[in-house]
């Protein structure tokens, strides 16, 4: 190591590198002249960012809203396409549809099953009927209706 230190001491950190005369001055001139133009860093105008217009500011949000609306419409469409027929639709009950289509059945059903309150409604709609003269039983049944005074029948 001592021998190495002696050698390193002898060289005095001189690397012995020589260059042609005036090389560095010439190099600097050559280099600066050959540097390519870079407007992105050299131009003042490109450094200053242009102010954003209102549309540019809201545009991402508008696009995002449109995208969500599109997704919602698509899901809705798929939902409608895959839903079975309405369970309350008359077509779902062919027997009932047949019955309601039969006029005789409807007439009999209405007449036979007409209750007293429906009948009272019918009578009240009659303008000639004076309700104050109408005897009001505790409850109205078929017998009460048959016993009404003659002018009410």
């Amino acid at each position, binding site marked *: *190591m001592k*021998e*190495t230190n002696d*050698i*390193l001491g*002898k*060289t005095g*950190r*001189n*690397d*012995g*590198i*020589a*260059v*042609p005369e005036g090389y*560095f001055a010439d*190099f*600097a001139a050559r*280099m*600066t002249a*050959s*540097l*390519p133009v*870079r407007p*992105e*860093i*050299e*131009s*003042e105008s*490109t*450094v200053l960012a242009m102010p954003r217009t209102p549309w540019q500011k809201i545009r991402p949000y508008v696009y995002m809203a449109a995208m969500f609306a599109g997704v919602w419409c698509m899901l809705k469409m798929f939902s409608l396409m895959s839903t079975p027929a309405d369970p309350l639709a008359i077509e779902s009950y062919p027997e009932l549809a047949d019955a309601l289509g039969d006029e005789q059945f409807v007439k009999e059903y209405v007449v036979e099953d007409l209750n007293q309150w429906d009948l009272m409604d019918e009578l009240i709609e009659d303008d000639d009927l004076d309700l104050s003269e109408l005897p009001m039983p505790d409850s109205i049944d078929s017998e009460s209706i048959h016993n009404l005074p003659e002018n009410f029948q």
Partner: protein
Amino acid sequence: MSVISTEDEQKLTERLRQPGQCRDAFGEVVRLYSEPLYRQIRRMVPRHEDADDLLQNTFIKAWGSLENFRGEARLSTWLYKIAVNEAISFLDRERRRQSISLDDQQQQLVAQIEADENIDGDKVARQLRQAVAMLPEKQRLVFNMKYYDDMKYEKISEILGTSVGALKTSYHLAVKKIEQFFSGQD
């Protein structure tokens, strides 16, 4: 390596960031750093013509990526890093182009130093360069920066991305190998 004070280097870095001044400031960078960078490259690549090309590439790359230099590292460290990478890439390319091994390339470098006409100094200086050329690439870089440029380990660590401990070991090994080289010369 630092040819200007830290304060002046910061001022120069600021000017490099100003659109209206960056070209002039870079011209100053070229004037200030071309010699130390050239020497660093030339210690790795013996031929002057190759070193000249690599020095140009170093500045072209620095100019081309100036916007990426954020001033987190020192300007000289950043430039040194580019120059070292250029030199290492050149040696790799040459090795592949000539299809030769690392050992063969080292012998070639020694022969080039021997034949180099652009060399000053005495026989010992030339022999020392030949001894350094025989070192592995990493040890060669560390030795050059530490011995010739008298750079601090912390700065070498920033340039090479190696820990200070590893650099000290590399330098120690390099000195040992140079010692062996000179023992063999006797």
